[in-house]
Structure formats: structure tokens, C-alpha cells
């Protein structure tokens, strides 16, 4: 078994609008803050992994180096849909496990303010003769003619599928999930939105894709997050304060879609998440009932419901009862998305995977301020990207 890897420092920028700044500015801010939090400098770092889906460069990590220090270390530019940040962290972690570095830095950033709908290209009929193209032999773009690839519509179908299979999930239930996350965000000063909504306000807001209204969709925003990871061997040489604040990565898992008949026409976010969770619990030697808090990928309110089940926070088919029990509110048995989640904290895609881990670390270090979950010792962070990648990390407070 390769040695343990720890989080030594971690940071996220305020999520929201950052006019006048660019991807490099935000990524550099997050990276420098993570290094400061770790108590190390860029010259201590042996590997850099950087992710951004909108930075528009295949050498984005090297652009960050020009702002924070060009030290000749290997740089990995990572892209893995909404799991990009979690994947970047894993790249740094794997280099440490491989013995090629003792300290690694992973950064994720996105600028998405005003980006609008993600996932579906505009339909552009070119005119002239109908000509079949592509793998479906389509004569014109299919969005809106043969279902939808837009994320709100895809995840709406995923949520209604779950509701139909197990019962009890209606429009109001999904709105109540969003109500919870928006309520939680009021305690998070780094969230893009910190506004509480009533269920009625959520249900009567602009419909995006039934049953997801606007406050039930992830908030496109700008933001960056960064993390410094360290080998167990190196951590033992560091100061007592650094060791006290270090967070153990008890499990780090990445999966992709296994073949399913159904996932050929509608992405299957369930199977790969369930497999990632099962492997993570096995790696960590920790069961879902031991989790003190969870940050999961609520890109839409409909997605949060299915992931209660996929992450085994409840028995299979029991997600509606689990939510109705109050378990996922911050004073419940398994608080979920106490940061506000993607719906209100925001979803700058490549930053999200690291930002979810940042939230867990804040609680494990007893540094979460007003939203601290008292006595938190173990947490789970989950992200999913279509289609499809799923990252699950289990994190534990240092023993002493």
C-alpha cells in the first residue's frame, strides 16, 4: 500500500462575478492562498496540476506558473468536465503516491458569469440541401428536435426517472431541496448567492426545464480553488501546527460510466457514482453512517436527490424519505451541502471539485465559522461531470 497523502493547504476565492480579472488572476489568487495556508512556497512544490474548461489554452498551468513561479516542475493540464478539479487533485496525489514528488499543487478555475445554458450547442440550420452528417447521419442539429442535451433538461429527466421508480418525488420536493441549499448559503460568505428563498418563491421562479426552476439550477459564476497535498513522510518533518491542520485523504476515487443499456440515450449519473462511493468507503474503511457532512454535486435540485441514494446516505430507493426526515439540513443526521451547494455557492466548473473539498476541510479543521458542523471528523466530497466522470474523496481530521 502506497503511503498516505494529506491536504496541507487549501483555498477558494469568493465565488461570484469578478469583472476586470481573468482566469490567470483568479487561479493565481487561489494558488498563492493555498500555498500560504499550507505554510510552504512554490519552490517546495514538486508537481502542478491545473484545470480550466474555459481558459482557452492547452498550457494553462504554465500560464499560472508565470505568475506564481516558474520552477521547472512537471505541469499537467487537466480536463474532465465538471470533475476537472477533483481530477487535478488526483493527478497531484498520484505523483506523490508514485514517489515522484513530496508536495503537489492542484488548481481549478472557471469564469462563467453570464454563460447561460451549458451543454447544448445552438441550433444552426445552414440552408441549402439537406445533407446527413455525423454519427447519427443527422441533417440538422438535433437539440430540441430529438430531446435535449441541455444540462437542466438532462438532470430533470434523471430526477423524474428516480421519482417514477421509487415514488414521492414531485415538483415541490425538488423545490424544498433547493430551499435547503439556499438557506445554508446564508452562512457562507464566499458563496455567489447568500439569499434565502421560500418554497413558493422557488416554485414560482422562472422555469428552466421542468421541474427545475432557476433557483434549482447551479449558479454559473467565476471562481477558483487550489489545494496543496503532501506525502505522509514529508508531513512528519513539518511543524506541529501544520500537522494539526493537515487533513487526511482517506479515499480518492475516480470512475467513468460503465456500460448500461439506458446510458446510451440518457447519461447515467447513478452507476458510476454508486461505484465510486462503494470504492471510496472501502478505501477509507469508513461507512456512510460515519460521515459528519457531505458536499455533493447538486448541479440541479433533481441531481441532489439521486445522489443521496448513489452515495448510500440512505437505503436504495429511500432518498425521498431521507430528505423528508430532515437528515440533510445542517442540523440533521447527515448534513449535505452546508456550503450552499452548486445551486447557491455557485459552480465555476473546474474549481468545483476542489471547492467541495475546501468546504469539508473547513469543518474538519474547525475553521468554518458560523456554519461549523460541531465535532466534524469525517466528510465526503463528490463531483460528477458529463459524461461521464465521477470523483469521490473521503477526508478525515488529523488524529491529534
Amino acid at each position, binding site marked *: 500500500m502506497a503511503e498516505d497523502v494529506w491536504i496541507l493547504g487549501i483555498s477558494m476565492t469568493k465565488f461570484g462575478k469578478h469583472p476586470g480579472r481573468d482566469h490567470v488572476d483568479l487561479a493565481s489568487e487561489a494558488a498563492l492562498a493555498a500555498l500560504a495556508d499550507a505554510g510552504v512556497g512554490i519552490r517546495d512544490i514538486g508537481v502542478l496540476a491545473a484545470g480550466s474548461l474555459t481558459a482557452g489554452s492547452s498550457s494553462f498551468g504554465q500560464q499560472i506558473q508565470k505568475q506564481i513561479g516558474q520552477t521547472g516542475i512537471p505541469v499537467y493540464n487537466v480536463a474532465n468536465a465538471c470533475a476537472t478539479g477533483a481530477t487535478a487533485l488526483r493527478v497531484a496525489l498520484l505523483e506523490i503516491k508514485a514517489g515522484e514528488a513530496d508536495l503537489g499543487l492542484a488548481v481549478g478555475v472557471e469564469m462563467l458569469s453570464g454563460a447561460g*445554458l451549458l451543454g*447544448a*450547442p*445552438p*441550433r*444552426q*440550420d445552414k*440552408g*441549402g*440541401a*439537406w445533407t*446527413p452528417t455525423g*454519427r*447519427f*447521419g*443527422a*441533417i*440538422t442539429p*438535433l*437539440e*430540441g*428536435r*430529438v*430531446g*435535449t442535451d*441541455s444540462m*437542466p*433538461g*438532462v438532470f*430533470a*429527466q*434523471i430526477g*423524474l*426517472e428516480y*421519482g*417514477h421508480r421509487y415514488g414521492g418525488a414531485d*415538483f415541490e420536493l425538488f423545490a424544498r431541496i433547493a430551499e435547503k441549499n439556499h438557506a445554508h448559503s446564508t452562512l457562507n460568505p464566499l458563496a455567489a448567492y447568500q439569499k434565502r428563498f421560500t418554497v413558493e418563491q422557488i416554485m414560482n421562479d*422562472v*422555469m*428552466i*426545464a*421542468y*421541474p*427545475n426552476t432557476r433557483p434549482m439550477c447551479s449558479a454559473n459564476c467565476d471562481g477558483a480553488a487550489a489545494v496543496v497535498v503532501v506525502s505522509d513522510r514529508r508531513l512528519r518533518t513539518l511543524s506541529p501546527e501544520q500537522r494539526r491542520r493537515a487533513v487526511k485523504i482517506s479515499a480518492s476515487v475516480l470512475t467513468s460510466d460503465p*456500460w448500461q*443499456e*439506458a446510458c*446510451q*440515450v*440518457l447519461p447515467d449519473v447513478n452507476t458510476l457514482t454508486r461505484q465510486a462511493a462503494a470504492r471510496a468507503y472501502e478505501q477509507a474503511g469508513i461507512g456512510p453512517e460515519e460521515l459528519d457532512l457531505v458536499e455533493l454535486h447538486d448541479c440541479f435540485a433533481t441531481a441532489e436527490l439521486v445522489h443521496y441514494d448513489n452515495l448510500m446516505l440512505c437505503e436504495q430507493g429511500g432518498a425521498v424519505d431521507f430528505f423528508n426526515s430532515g437528515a440533510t439540513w445542517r442540523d440533521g443526521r447527515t448534513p449535505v451541502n452546508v456550503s450552499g451547494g452548486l445551486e447557491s455557492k455557485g459552480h465555476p466548473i473546474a474549481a468545483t471539485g476542489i471547492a467541495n473539498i475546501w468546504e469539508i476541510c473547513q469543518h474538519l479543521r474547525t475553521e468554518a465559522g458560523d456554519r461549523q458542523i460541531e465535532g466534524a471528523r469525517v466528510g465526503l466530497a463528490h463531483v460528477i461531470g458529463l459524461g461521464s466522470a465521477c470523483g469521490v474523496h473521503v477526508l478525515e481530521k488529523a488524529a491529534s
Partner: protein
Amino acid sequence: MVDRIALVDYLVLDDEPHLVAHECEQCSARYFDRRNACAACDNTTFRSVDIPREGTLYTFSIVAVAPPGVPVPFVAAIVDCGGTRVRGNLVNIDPDPEQVRLGMRVRLTTVPLGADSAGVEAVGYGFEPA
């Protein structure tokens, strides 16, 4: 002279318009798009199979906000046609959650898409209440 063309190559326009899938000759996994190999079993040979024209509504969303050029609202749906999941809009029904019921019976229908400069009519498909 072709006077009609299908929206996608898996839509067959004949007296009873229907969908066809590529079925893996080894494991019977079905695909609507062209595949280099079977994602389920790696086999590389496929046969063509007709998909039943009737099915049940497996899941849906009523999409109200879409990219430019896409008329809204529309009912995006997944239909279970005899065990094969098919993607397609629900048509000839109000885009209203009170009208669209999961599990309802639906059947394939064609949707005219207009003619190109040479007068060739394009034909798409959707599912309507059975």
C-alpha cells in the same frame, strides 16, 4: 429522385415509419449512432433491428429555456420501446406536467421539418399519446 429525407439515418420512412438500431451480433446491445465497436463487449459486428413503434414514457422534462433557434417549450422524453430506450420529443400533447404522465403509452409519429432549396422534404420523428 429523392423527395423525402429522414432527420436521422435511424429513422426509416416507409408505409409504417419506424426506427432501426445497430444491434451487436455478440451481446445484442443496441445503439442508434454508428459505433466502431460494441461498448458493452468489444465485438465489432452489428446487425440492423427494427424498434417497436409503441412504448411507454420512461422520463421527461419540459424544456422552457433553450439555445437560440430552438423553439420552446418542448417536451424532451425518453421512451421505453419494448426494452430499448429511445430519445425523442413528446409531440401532439400540451407541454404541461398535468398532461404528461410517466408510464403513459406513446407511439412513434413523424414530424414535417420543411423543404430544402431543391424541394426535398425533411421528416423528423416524435412520440404522441397512444
